[in-house]
């Protein structure tokens, strides 16, 4: 600590520290920048490079340049288009459900009642559980067609036993992912609600606004920022869902629950098809970044309006 604070002259002439100020910031920023460039930008450009080759690790000596052939293969095979569809369906479906459930829970928890603080704390639990724990617990103990808890519920209501992961694979995965991400939506949306000034609500009530009007014209506009944050953060995270699928369906049956990240894992680490996996990786990045650009704009706006 003392080693890097050289003795400064007591007579502080103003130019001397200023020179230090000019130099120091960029010097301090560069280690973090360089690290991120080396571990994210460089590998990504290598991914783009590999995507133009027929490159299989089983035969690494032969690596012909094939241009956009990998992309053509990816985007013309109907099975691969299904995987693209799965990716969007899984992300979109889970997002919609978490928004509805998380919003309802946020509204319910924004009231005063006994045990509210405890419930609020406990409710974030499923978000903190490791995705792969979620997957194996749901797969084995809840969704199992014979011994699973849900089957027992269905049977005791007089229904037929259901093999959830075989009959409704995508719905099961969406249910799992929704269970995990609802607390995230709830947490952000509840914080958004709580930053709503009381006097605005009171003013609306004094003006004779009905609860519906109050919600539509006061609560909802104020809520929009939190809603947007949930939508964009979750979109980026849900396009990358992997552990839940790995631990439960392994992408099956068939390709019913294979999304882009799981597909890339299969291509790269089971088939060693580096070229095709790279092309799929590039597509995933493009898909994510189209949404990310929008998110960046939003966050820039909110952080600059914070007054800091």
């Amino acid at each position, binding site marked *: 600590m003392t080693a890097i604070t050289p003795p400064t002259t007591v007579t*502080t002439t103003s130019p001397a520290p200023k020179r230090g100020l000019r130099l120091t910031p960029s010097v301090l*920023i560069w280690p973090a920048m360089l690290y991120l460039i080396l571990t994210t930008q460089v*590998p990504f450009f290598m991914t783009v490079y590999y995507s133009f080759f027929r490159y299989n690790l089983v035969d690494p000596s032969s690596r012909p340049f094939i241009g956009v052939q990998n992309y053509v293969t990816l985007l013309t095979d109907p099975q691969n288009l299904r995987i693209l569809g799965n990716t969007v369906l899984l992300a979109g479906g889970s997002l919609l459900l978490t928004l509805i459930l998380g919003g309802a829970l946020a509204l319910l928890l924004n009231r005063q009642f006994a045990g509210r603080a405890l419930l609020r704390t406990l409710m974030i639990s499923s978000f903190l559980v490791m995705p792969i724990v979620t997957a194996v617990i749901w797969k084995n103990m809840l969704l199992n067609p014979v011994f699973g808890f849900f089957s*027992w519920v269905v049977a005791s209501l007089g229904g037929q036993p259901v093999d959830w992961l075989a009959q409704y694979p995508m719905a099961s995965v969406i249910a799992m992912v929704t269970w995990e991400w609802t607390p995230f939506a709830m947490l952000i949306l509840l914080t958004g609600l709580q930053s709503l000034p009381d006097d605005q609500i009171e003013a609306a009530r004094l003006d004779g606004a009905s609860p519906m009007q109050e919600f539509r014209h006061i609560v909802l506009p104020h809520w929009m920022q939190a809603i947007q944050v949930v939508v964009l953060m979750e979109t980026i995270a849900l396009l990358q869902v*992997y552990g839940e699928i790995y631990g439960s369906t392994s992408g099956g049956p068939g390709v019913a629950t294979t999304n882009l990240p799981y597909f890339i894992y299969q291509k790269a680490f089971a088939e060693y098809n580096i070229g095709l996996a790279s092309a799929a990786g590039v597509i995933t990045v493009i898909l994510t970044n189209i949404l990310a650009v929008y998110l960046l704009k939003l966050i820039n706006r909110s952080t600059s309006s914070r007054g800091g």
Partner: protein
Amino acid sequence: MTASPFIRNVSDRHRVRNILLTVLTYLLAAAFLFPLVWMFMAAFKTEAQAFAAPPVFSFTPIFDNFERALPGYLPALKNSLVAAVGSTILAFILGLPAAFALAVYPTRRAQGVLTWMLSTKFMPAVGVIVPLFLLFRNLQLLDTLPGLILMYTTMNLPLVVWMMHSYMTEIPFAIYEAAKVDGATVGQEFFRIALPLSTPGMAATALLCLIFAWNEVFFALNLTSSDAAPLSVFIGSFKTSMGLFWAQLSAAAVLTVLPVLIFGWVAQRQLVRGLSFGAVK
């Protein structure tokens, strides 16, 4: 309920509605927590009880499952701890100076740098995993803890910079100016002012980094196999070979998620800040 101070002043109609809404809240919460409660219960059952149909709700708790899970759990625990703590420390070493510089010496480029750092979070792991895997293979980093630490640092570094930047901008600027007048160097400002005054922020950020690294699955599964396999890989192994031992699986899962649950409950408020990159407070 009638004695509750919160609803003393509302009409009877409102009171009934309020009680119904509270009951609904508790029911929804119970439904949401059920999978976890079920897992915790199974951890203390015999294998036969865990598999029983209809399900067993009352039983004498046993601890055998934890004992049986330990031989596989402990090495994975060690790996998870080293990877999570190591990557958090490395992310702090790299990220704190950057956050400090961006907060205390903001230039016109600062916002751009911050935005760029955040944008690296939008890089899906699958967009970088193939070259990283090949690189790790050539550098003998596959299935090693240093390899895992390097990847988790990438994951957590933008979070450290963003969160610490937001905490450090909250330190009154007058304190830095007073220090400058007294002749403090940039290093002194960093170590004597910025770091001590943002200790709570550092604790919150570290907690988040630890949680994210602990729960990470994708890099763990694809860059480690046995020697450096963290808890996520250990739990993943129950998917196949050991999927029939529900009670033991539950015990292992409880041991895996409990630390994170406790950390997360404690740091709940900071979670919002970290998860939304400070956009919602």
